[in-house]
Each structure stands twice: as structure tokens, then as C-alpha cells.
């Protein structure tokens, strides 16, 4: 009977507080993750929006290709028109 009482006391005074403490820590950690996840979501959304202009790279590529082709034609004409240095 005495051991039973001692077991009850240990259960109420030691086991229950330890369980509550550990569970409270897990809950606090889980709660701290939520705002970080929301912040990451906002940053990812902003990053995705910033990349909307990447489509214009295709236009840039076409423009650069046309420009270099024009420069090549221009250089070819100059090569014919102007004398060489040596």
C-alpha cells in the first residue's frame, strides 16, 4: 500500500510535470515554424513574380542575334572598304 502511494506521488509530482514540459516544448517548436513557413512562402511568391520578366530574355536573345549579324555585315563591309594597318 505504501509503495502504491509512493508511486502515485511520483506520478503526480514527477512524471506529469515532465510530460507537460516536454509536450510544451514540442508545441512551442511547432508554433515557431509556422511564421517562418509563411515568410518563406511570401519570399517564394516575390521571387516567382520577379522572374516574370525572364520571358523577355527570348526577345533579348533574338535582338542580340540580329545585332551581332548586323555588326558582322558592317564589319565585312568595313573590311572591304578600309585598308589594313599592315
Amino acid at each position: 500500500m505504501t509503495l502504491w502511494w509512493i508511486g502515485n506521488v511520483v506520478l503526480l509530482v514527477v512524471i506529469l510535470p515532465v510530460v507537460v514540459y516536454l509536450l510544451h516544448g514540442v508545441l512551442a517548436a511547432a508554433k515557431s515554424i509556422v511564421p517562418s513557413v509563411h515568410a518563406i512562402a511570401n519570399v517564394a511568391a516575390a521571387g516567382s513574380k520577379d522572374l516574370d520578366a525572364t520571358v523577355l530574355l527570348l526577345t533579348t536573345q533574338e535582338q542580340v542575334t540580329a545585332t551581332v549579324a548586323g555588326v558582322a555585315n558592317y564589319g565585312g563591309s568595313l573590311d572591304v572598304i578600309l585598308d589594313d594597318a599592315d
Partner: protein
Amino acid sequence: MAPLLAVMAVGVVTILAVVLIVAALVFYLVSVIVQLRKITSGLDVVIAHVSEIVQKSAPVNDVVTTINGQLDAGVDLLEGLLVKKAGLVDAVGLVEGLYAGASAAGLRNFPESTTITAPRIGEVYTRGTLTLARLGREAPIAVGNPAGPALRDVERGSLAARQLYPEIRQTRPESLPRSPVIGTDAPEQYEQREDIGAPRKRLPGRSA
């Protein structure tokens, strides 16, 4: 009777303790589950946006590589043409004249250009500078090119360049004053005087 009550009391306390522990477990674990669900929904949003980022940035590498390749070809072409037409020394001088300090890096396809002391093209007219001047003012670029129309309007280019000169020739007057002709065959002969160059007949400062 008393031992029975004592046993019941101990049992009630035990049950109470177990109920408290189970209640604490239920409360905290349910709270954790709620938070994990929030995290899951937030991560779903993150994954959606990251997928968009991956999708949008997928062609960037190829496009930028292509653009860099095209620009490299253009740089090679222009460097080669500049060196071919102006010479390596003058080319370095021209680059230095346009971008101060750039000659230290040299021309990409001409490693020996880094060892050249750049001439001061801005002060001394060299062949490279004259080449540039011809390009800007009078070179008939692509005139009669079978590939298409001229890249540069020669008339307008000439008119634009003429704006740099004094007004007297810009309006193209019908007749300009002729340049004076000098020398023994000049149509305008000036009076020949014997006293010019001869010794003075009267020295200055002496009264008559």
C-alpha cells in the same frame, strides 16, 4: 472496512494521475497536430511558388549561354577588325582613349596587348584615329551592297558632319571669295618701292 477505503483512495489517486497525464497528452498532441497542419498548408504554398520559379528559370541558362556566345562572337569580330585596320598598338590606344584604364586589361584575343604602352590617341592623330574619323564622316558604308539597302545614309551623315564646320560653307553659297594668289605670277602685283629695305635717309630723333 478501513483497508478497503484506503485501497479505493489509492486507486482513485492513481486513476486521477493517469487521467491528468492522458489529458495533457491529448491537449498538447492535438495542438501540435494543428500547428503541423498549418505548416503543411504553408509548405504547399511554398512548393507551388518554388515550382513556378523552377519553371520560369528553366530556359534562362540556355538563353544566357546563347546570348553570351553571340556577344563573344561580336567581340571577337570587332577586336579582330580593329586590330586589322588600325594595328595592335593604335587599337590599344583607341581603347584607352575611349575607356581610360581599359588598356590594362588588353584585348581578349590578343594577349600581347597587355604589354603595350597605349599611345595617347587623343592628342596625336595616328592612323587609327584617322580611320575612326573616316568611319564617322565620309566612309560610304554599304553603298551598293547587294545584300540590301545601305546601313547608313551617306547624305545625312555628311550633312551632320558639316554642321561641325563654320557657317560659311554650310549654306553652300554659289561663289565664295577666291583665295589670294601670291608669288611673281600673281595677278595682283603690288607697288615696287625703292625705299623699302634701303637705308634710312634720315635717322630718327635728329631735327632738321
